[in-house]
């Protein structure tokens, strides 16, 4: 079943056509990678999914619901969470508090805080936040202030903030950018672990090693359009992609 359907999305900035008729189908339970050279429009595409940018044309359906016309808050409530390219976290708060906030948001189905009820559920909220931090390997740092953490840890924190809401669709924008090799491998392991829960994911990634280790389906973007789509094997074999983009850099050599 198709969880996310993107139909003929167009978006231009001034004269620049950042997205030029993009079509995409993300099946439930898959890890769908979107790859492509810098400036291909990958981040812009993701922005339209979460309501950060409004496309000029086209339609986006999530689980049958129209996404366009909703604000970021409502889109998150449908079950879409996203990790940003530069981590968006609550810098002044502790790691635990950072994760408790989305947990609290999800706990109450209406995404409002019922003061008394929220106070009553505090222990279970906190336990869920602690579990999410454990999942991403930050359990020992949970009382530290978020601002003081390394870049990699901030990314992992943001991932925990998304995971604690248990979204149906998780969007990751270059989760390993700027990471060391070890950190990258840790992140791959982490994402593989999460995958076993069957959460659908869209990953934008530069690093082919990451892409081929994680994804079950790949879309290749160039100059604002999807030029090829298929399984990792098909993509690796595709002469067009080889030519246009991969150029011998399959990450598996």
């Amino acid at each position: 079943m198709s969880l996310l359907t993107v139909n003929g999305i167009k978006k231009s900035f001034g004269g620049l056509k950042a997205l030029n008729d993009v079509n995409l189908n993300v099946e439930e339970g898959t890890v769908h990678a979107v790859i492509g050279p810098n400036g291909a429009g990958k981040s812009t595409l993701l922005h339209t999914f979460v309501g950060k940018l409004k496309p000029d044309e086209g339609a986006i359906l999530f689980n049958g619901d129209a996404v366009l016309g909703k604000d970021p808050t409502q889109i998150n409530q449908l079950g879409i969470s996203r990790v940003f390219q530069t981590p968006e976290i609550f810098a002044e708060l502790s790691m635990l508090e950072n994760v408790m906030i989305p947990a609290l948001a999800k706990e109450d189905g209406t995404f409002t805080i019922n003061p008394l009820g929220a106070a009553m559920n505090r222990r279970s909220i906190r336990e869920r936040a602690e579990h999410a931090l454990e999942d991403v390997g930050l359990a020992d740092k949970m009382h530290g202030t978020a601002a003081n953490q390394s870049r990699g840890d901030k990314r992992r924190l943001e991932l925990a903030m998304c995971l604690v809401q248990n979204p149906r669709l998780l969007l990751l924008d270059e989760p390993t950018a700027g990471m060391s090799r070890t950190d990258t491998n840790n992140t791959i392991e982490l994402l593989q672990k999460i995958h076993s829960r069957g959460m659908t994911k869209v990953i934008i990634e530069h690093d082919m090693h990451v892409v081929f280790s994680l994804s079950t389906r790949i879309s290749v973007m160039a100059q604002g359009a999807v030029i090829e789509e298929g399984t990792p094997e098909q993509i690796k074999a595709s002469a067009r992609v080889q030519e246009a983009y991969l150029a011998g850099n399959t990450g598996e050599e």
Partner: protein
Amino acid sequence: MTAQLSNNPAADIDNGFSFLGLRMTRRDAMGAALFAVAILLLPLLMLPFNGSAPSTVYQIAIFGIFAIGFNILFGLTGYLSFGHAAFVGIGSYAAIWSLKLLTLNIIPALIVGPIAAGLIALPIGWLTLRRSGIYFSILTLAFSIMLFIMAFSVFKDITNGQDGQRTSQFDVRVIDDVFGWNQPVGKTRDEVTAANAALSEWNRELAALKRTNPEINGRPVDWGTLNDFTIKNMQEAGLQISTRPDQLARPSIPEFFGTPMNRGYTNFYICAVVLILTYIFATLLRQSSFGLMLLAVKTNQTRMDYMGLKPKRYTLAAFVISAMFAGLAGALFVAMDPNAPPDRMEWTESGKVVIMNILGGMGSVVGPFIGALIVKYFGNIISSIDVSRLTHTIEETLPFPAFIEWPIAHLPHLFVGEGWELGMGLVFMLMVIFLPGGGVSLWQRWTRRTKRLFLISFGLIYVIYVIDRFLLGNALPGWTMFLPLVAFVVYAIARPILSWRARQAAKRTGGEDPNAGDSAAGKDPAPGSDDSAVADPVAVLTRKPTDPSAPAPASA
């Protein structure tokens, strides 16, 4: 998980008290207890400072309530309102009308005040919170000035303009009449009823006469000066008016179930109890999920959008709650002194509460109260300095020619006496530049030794005061008491400078820093990190919510 927690300095999150799902950690509970004791003893503690008159201490308490409530908006969400004095005014007017129309008992007044302020804050907050930062501040300022002007024009009947609204013995007071409270002393109920009936009969007669637009000697009757003499004149002129029946004098001083607010320290202790409850409320709120959301608003609203939260709900709630505390403060002012003047709504008053928050240290619960104490107390002291005498003394002592002496001698005019607000502004500016965290952050910066010295020198004030008063019979001049504190201030200023110079010297000679072990900068313990709650009681009060070493919010 548990093992990990107990290794953490923040382990006490799991100790503490829980009621109705609201939690208080041990540290917070200790802080609240300490605060309560200090407040209840405030009149005694202020004795050496010549500031223990009931009206001084109750004003400090009321401003404390205002400032702590304001901090729920400013300190937690970071939204700086420049219009909260308007809500103090609204609380005042609502309370005075409760005293006039319902009962002189202060409890309904204290309930009506915050509710009125909250109801008016709701639409104002809804509008102003569409913007943030400086735009929000300007919008709130504009709204408060609008309300201030409306108090003089559209609502003049309610506010009585510049003179302010007061209670009087002729007020209707429905609840008082039903329950027979606050009636004329020494009369039976039937006598009171009869007298009231006679008075209203006479009032009807008067109203009937007014409708005829009578004239005396060709001039319309001046109804403004109606007393026994003018009534007699009217009767002699042949107008249909009988002699006014005797009025039974009813009290007009607000009271608390029989105790009037002008007796002893009753007024202060009522304010003190409300202040302590406000403190506890603010502590609980900060530890609650709602408080966490307010801190989230301050830190990153974008993130909240993308996790399904609507920041405005929380900012609006915080706005209304802080306005209700402002209204409560306004109601308390009126309950203590039954007069509601419009000056309370002026925008300078809004500025004062901002200054209190910044001086004391926003973000912590006790900081705003300390700011209120400093502004209120020093405001009183500095504004009461006799500048002319000071000028005279300077001119007498300085040996310079007049044209040099004059500007020097007149300089204090700008900053003390009537110019005290300029003096306060100067202190505020220096504070914001050199100590942006406020008084609370100063405490957190000190080493343990400095903290101890401060507490000792502060305690010495009381020791000297007691010795002087009870053993020497007030023989010492007033300023001697403050010598220990002055010595401490000199020490606190000189020490970092000296140790800095010593470090510079050591650097030049390439040697070891002689002061490395205990210099103020070198061995500054993170607040609360090595000071256990028992060893450092004030740290309990001054802990900030975002303090990394502080316990994370408790779970229930």
